[in-house]
């Protein structure tokens, strides 16, 4: 082999040297990329220190629909607790069916469960995007509550009646601050069982789930 690089014959310390080289190069490139992005568009880059999202994820219901055996279903923890990182929701064996913990903060919900709630009509779905985006396409049955309008008019939240069902908020995906903020606003307005669907509209469309078009009917 006349090549200057080891082509698979490297062993021992030479091999680990290569491993180290790859990891170091990769790590440096990654940090450099993020630093460059940070200079250009600070919002899209990652901060050095990670701050966890304030929303915990609602676990998937078991596919067989049977309650998880084993773990004793600890009661939904008192609002505000949740320091246990292994079981942040205090859910224990819960998460079956359409029961969701009644905690004093929004929870993240993932698309598979959103679809379950949608199919069973067990949730009130809110579209937090602009009316234009809503009119161009939304989850059937979703109510349009644009987050920025709501911020100016808190009464709309107070009057909003989820009819005793859990509320699922979605927006345009990504970091989805709109639905996150609206989720917190709903909780602040005294609503219970507020779920934020972070994947939002893009994920819903990607999955090929049903969509509806058109603006909110007058008087709704």
């Amino acid at each position: 082999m006349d090549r200057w690089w080891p082509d698979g014959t490297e062993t021992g310390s030479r091999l680990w040297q290569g491993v180290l080289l790859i990891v170091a190069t990769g790590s440096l490139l990654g940090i450099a990329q993020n630093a460059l992005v940070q200079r250009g568009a600070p919002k899209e880059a990652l901060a050095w220190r990670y701050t966890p999202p304030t929303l915990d994820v609602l676990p998937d219901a078991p596919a067989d629909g049977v309650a998880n055996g084993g773990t004793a279903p600890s009661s939904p923890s008192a609002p505000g607790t949740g320091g246990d990182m292994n079981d942040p929701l205090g859910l224990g064996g819960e998460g079956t069916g359409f029961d969701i913990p009644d905690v004093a903060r929004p929870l993240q919900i993932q698309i598979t469960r959103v679809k379950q709630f949608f199919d069973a009509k067990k949730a009130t779905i809110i579209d937090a995007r602009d009316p234009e985006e809503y009119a161009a396409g939304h989850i059937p049955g979703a109510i349009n509550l644009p987050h920025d309008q709501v911020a100016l008019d808190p009464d709309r939240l107070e009057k909003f009646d989820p009819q005793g069902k859990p509320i699922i908020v979605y927006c345009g995906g990504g970091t989805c601050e709109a639905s996150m903020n609206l989720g917190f606003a709903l909780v602040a307005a005294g609503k219970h069982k507020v779920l934020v669907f972070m994947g939002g509209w893009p994920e819903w469309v990607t999955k090929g789930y049903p969509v509806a078009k058109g603006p909110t009917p007058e008087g709704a």
Partner: protein
Amino acid sequence: MGVIRGFFAHPTVRRGAQLIAGAIFLAAALPKIADLSAFATSVHNFRLEPVIPIVATNLLAMTIPWTELVAGLALVAGVRPRAGALVYTILLGAFTIGVIAAMARGLSFECGCFGKASAGTVGAKKLMENLAMLAVGVVASVERR
């Protein structure tokens, strides 16, 4: 036994495994690099904080995809392929432990293993997938004689 060993020690088989492993890592790295914050969320979903401090989540999200990329390139190009294969195997081993730990704690989320678009939920299927990819890595790491 000799036949099996001979097969796995065969240069073509090893090189093939290296190419497959490299392609897998390139396919895994690029979508993550394109959306680092989505990957940071994925890393967070694994709830590694009992082992790795939570503030390190972003650092992992920055470094893992590029390390995958460099290892993938090394494997595909055949430059230090054994080192690349070892990085691949070690990383996949760590990912697999992460998947098992998540499953054991009943966590269920999109793993983000190949970025957000082609997500798969962490579970038995993901575990099988990982073990198969791990096997490719082991073959790719076989010493060249």
